[in-house]
């Protein structure tokens, strides 16, 4: 690593940090806000408005508490690497824990673990270090300038005398927080940029890692949810409690904005002394649901018809309009036009929705696998009427989040059930409830029309996306563009002399939410398939074609140059194998993929190899980046090949994994990840590998069969998954 990371961080000021002694009046605690949009001023009341801490005990223990969550992306380790670097401590001696929720705990989304927080974290570590150096120098009665920090000690260089951080922790906590401490020079990095092993992995090979579903409390009962199978339906009347159940609790719905819908009861929970018993009793209940007439419209056939009509005649919002697109089409030598369709998708985290809550008249404690602990706090306030200082939220490990565990429905239910029964309960959703009551990746219809000149230059590019709006379902203004819907369709990196993008909201009421890479998961397929069609029309190698179109974008061009270099194998493939490529920029990161595929049958593809080239600016932990590239690709591949959730008269038609195929070992291609450190601001890693794999495979499929696949999933007849 020769180049340091530039940063998008805003300048830090006094309000970003506070220092004080740890609980009990001894030791050191530096609290800091994780995001520039929030401030760390400690309130005079009981609400601590910070979301991360560096804690040093008088016993020299070092703990980093962070206000996010670990869902497998490696953030916990990445944060510790960054802080340990400037704090000048041994990473092996650092414990990392998730902090109890505060009102500004951050939402783990948008591939944001490292994005925009790099300098902030480094400054926090360096500030704490300088406070220890100052306190240590005072304790040794020597000048600060003669002291350095190393391995958790303050060392007086002329004499080699030293004191440990712990021994001066209490004094350090009383010092002012320096706002512009010197950061460790890149050449001296011990941890940043290194493939440091993940802190959480040992506990994940022996069953010790505690996921939300594993929480156990004294006197805890087990609750299982049963929700109206038709979306929008409500409980007609509360069914009688079976004799062997502890309780039957009707649960009030949450709307898509996270608020309780007063009087709308859409679920019933059965509470018993173990999960299985509660589940069997739940299935035995005779439940009557009241279904509103509007539910029937949540039907794939009807929604698709509506989308087709909106594509033809709907009034668009126009988030991008540069140059004279229509005029340029008149002068184009070739025009290519295609319409792509996308199904609803489920998140299908392997750990289903669950939450443990213990509510008393004066307190509420929640243990949740959540991507949004701050929202859990708000949900707890809303359900219980308690104040923030009466509520504690513990964030557990997540058995996958993928955007689903931002939502508050399962959290609200657990708190309601504990409140109603007056005892600690663990709420669990059977897989069937999880699939049929997701907040789904939106369906979409995307049309792209592009004109090129004789050399293949894009002279006009027109796109039109028809899709339900995640943000509007959550109360966004009806007149504005939903950036989540058009992500991946605007400000494309390809040179285009005119461009226009339109978005037409589809009012379909199926609840939609944030699915790994969100809008990019849709729009990138359309864009990258179209670029491939243009390359074919211009009779150019699709990698070379992208290199040409990136001529004025050095970062994208360099990435594609690297893709060309590492995929020379593509020129010597046997006749039965073809290759395809795609590119995507998302969350500040650029990814190119080159895949090698064959077609065992007319309706199935075998992906043999995936070459992933990634530029996330600066890889804080190459080990985690590589893992996220592999994982994000696998997620996108399963979705493109097989993923779909059809709806019939308001009810999701997929209920379990047997009809929602994902990759297993035998499906796994050989993956190579090449990391390019361009030194641009640090981008995300969790999502950017998901969008490009689908179009890369579709483009290979065209070379195998001559057929363009414009409707996802690519192979719907292969979407069953067996256990063998």
């Amino acid at each position: 690593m020769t180049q340091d990371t530039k940063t998008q961080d805003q300048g830090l000021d006094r309000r970003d940090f506070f220092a004080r002694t740890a609980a009990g009046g001894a030791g050191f605690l530096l609290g800091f806000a994780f995001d520039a949009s929030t401030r760390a001023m400690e309130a005079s009341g009981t609400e601590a408005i910070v979301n991360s801490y560096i804690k040093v005990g008088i016993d020299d223990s070092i703990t980093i508490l962070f206000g996010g969550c670990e869902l497998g992306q490696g953030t916990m380790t990445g944060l510790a690497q960054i802080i340990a670097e400037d704090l000048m401590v041994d990473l092996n001696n650092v414990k990392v824990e998730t902090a109890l929720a505060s009102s500004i705990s951050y939402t783990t989304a948008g591939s944001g673990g490292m994005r925009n927080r790099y300098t902030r974290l480094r400054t926090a570590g360096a500030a704490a270090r300088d406070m220890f150096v100052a306190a240590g120098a005072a304790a040794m009665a020597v000048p600060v300038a003669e002291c350095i920090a190393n391995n958790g000690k303050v060392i007086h260089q002329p004499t080699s005398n030293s004191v440990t951080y712990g021994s001066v922790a209490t004094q350090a906590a009383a010092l002012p927080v320096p706002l512009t401490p010197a950061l460790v020079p890149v050449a001296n990095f011990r941890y940043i940029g290194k493939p440091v092993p993940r802190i959480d992995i040992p506990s994940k090979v022996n069953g010790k890692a505690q996921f939300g579903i594993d929480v156990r409390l004294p006197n805890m009962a087990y609750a299982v949810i049963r929700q109206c199978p038709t979306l929008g339906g409500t409980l007609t009347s509360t069914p009688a409690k079976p004799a062997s159940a502890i309780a039957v609790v009707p649960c009030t719905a949450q709307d898509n904005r996270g608020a309780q819908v007063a009087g709308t009861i859409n679920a019933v929970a059965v509470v018993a002394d173990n999960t299985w018993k509660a589940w069997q009793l739940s299935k035995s209940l005779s439940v009557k649901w009241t279904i509103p007439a509007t539910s029937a419209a949540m039907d794939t056939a009807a929604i698709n018809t509506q989308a087709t009509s909106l594509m033809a005649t709907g009034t668009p919002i126009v988030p991008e309009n540069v140059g004279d697109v229509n005029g340029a089409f008149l002068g184009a030598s070739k025009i290519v036009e295609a319409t792509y369709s996308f199904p609803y998708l489920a998140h299908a985290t392997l750990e289903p929705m669950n939450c443990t809550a213990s509510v008393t008249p004066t307190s509420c404690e929640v243990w949740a696998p959540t991507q949004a602990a701050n929202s859990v706090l708000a949900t707890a306030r809303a359900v219980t009427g308690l104040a923030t200082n009466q509520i504690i939220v513990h964030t557990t490990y997540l058995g996958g989040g993928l955007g689903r565990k931002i939502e508050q429905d399962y959290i609200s239910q657990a708190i309601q059930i504990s409140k109603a029964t007056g005892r600690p309960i663990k709420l669990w959703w059977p897989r069937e409830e999880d699939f049929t009551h997701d907040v789904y990746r939106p369906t979409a219809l995307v049309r792209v029309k592009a004109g090129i000149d004789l050399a293949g230059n894009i002279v006009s590019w027109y796109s039109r996306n028809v899709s339900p709006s995640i943000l509007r379902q959550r109360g966004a203004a009806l007149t504005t563009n939903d950036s989540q819907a058009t992500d991946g369709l605007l400000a494309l990196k390809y040179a285009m002399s005119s461009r226009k993008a339109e978005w037409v909201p589809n009012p379909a009421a199926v609840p939609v939410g944030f699915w790994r890479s969100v809008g990019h998961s849709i729009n990138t397929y359309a864009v990258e398939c179209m670029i491939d069609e243009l390359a074919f029309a211009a009779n150019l190698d699709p990698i070379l074609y992208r290199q040409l179109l990136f001529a004025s974008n050095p970062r994208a061009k360099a990435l594609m140059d690297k893709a060309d270099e590492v995929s020379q194998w593509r020129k010597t493939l046997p006749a039965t194998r073809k290759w395809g490529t795609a590119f995507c920029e998302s969350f500040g990161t650029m990814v190119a993929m080159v895949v090698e595929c064959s077609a065992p049958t007319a309706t199935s593809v075998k992906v043999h190899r995936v070459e992933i080239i990634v530029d996330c600016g600066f890889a804080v932990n190459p080990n985690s980046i590589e893992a996220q590239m592999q994982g994000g690709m696998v997620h996108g591949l399963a979705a493109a090949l097989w993923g779909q959730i059809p709806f019939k008269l308001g009810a999701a038609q997929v209920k379990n994994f047997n009809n929602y195929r994902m990759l297993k070992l035998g499906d796994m291609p050989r993956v190579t990840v090449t990391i390019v450190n361009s030194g641009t601001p640090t981008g995300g890693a969790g999502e950017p590998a998901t969008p490009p794999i689908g179009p890369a495979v579709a483009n290979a499929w065209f070379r195998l069969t001559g057929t363009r696949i414009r409707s996802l999933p690519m192979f719907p007849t292969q979407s069953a998954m067996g256990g063998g």
Partner: protein
Amino acid sequence: MQMTLNVNGTNYPINVDETTPLLWVLRDVIGLTGTKYGCGIEVCWACSVMVNGQIEKSCKYEVKEAIGKKITTIEGLSADGLSHPAQKAWVECQVPQCGYCQSGVLMAMSIAMQGHTPTDALNEIKNLCVCGTYQRMREAAAVTKA
């Protein structure tokens, strides 16, 4: 029904309906939560445990079938929780992401290793990993000491 289950060498007296799947007895009654629920229909293999040396999907395996048999869960795979050859290799190759499926993966892997090389054993298993850690599973199998 009163019964005794032998799990990881310890006898546990329990009292549950005899048709309760072993998964829920392990997790809710005995408190061994390393074994995970994923699908409940024997498709994902997250709930894999060893019963008398054989792999069983505990989500469908009624507890009465396990009476008198030796049950091994992820908690009992090795004495210190890290020393089974597959556990060592999984840490060395940094396999888990979210980690939720890996108990089942390691149980299936360790059972398949009885009579197979680690690489062949891995090809026997059909666990679902939604995070997509399969490539590192292959790398780990390649360095697992048989």
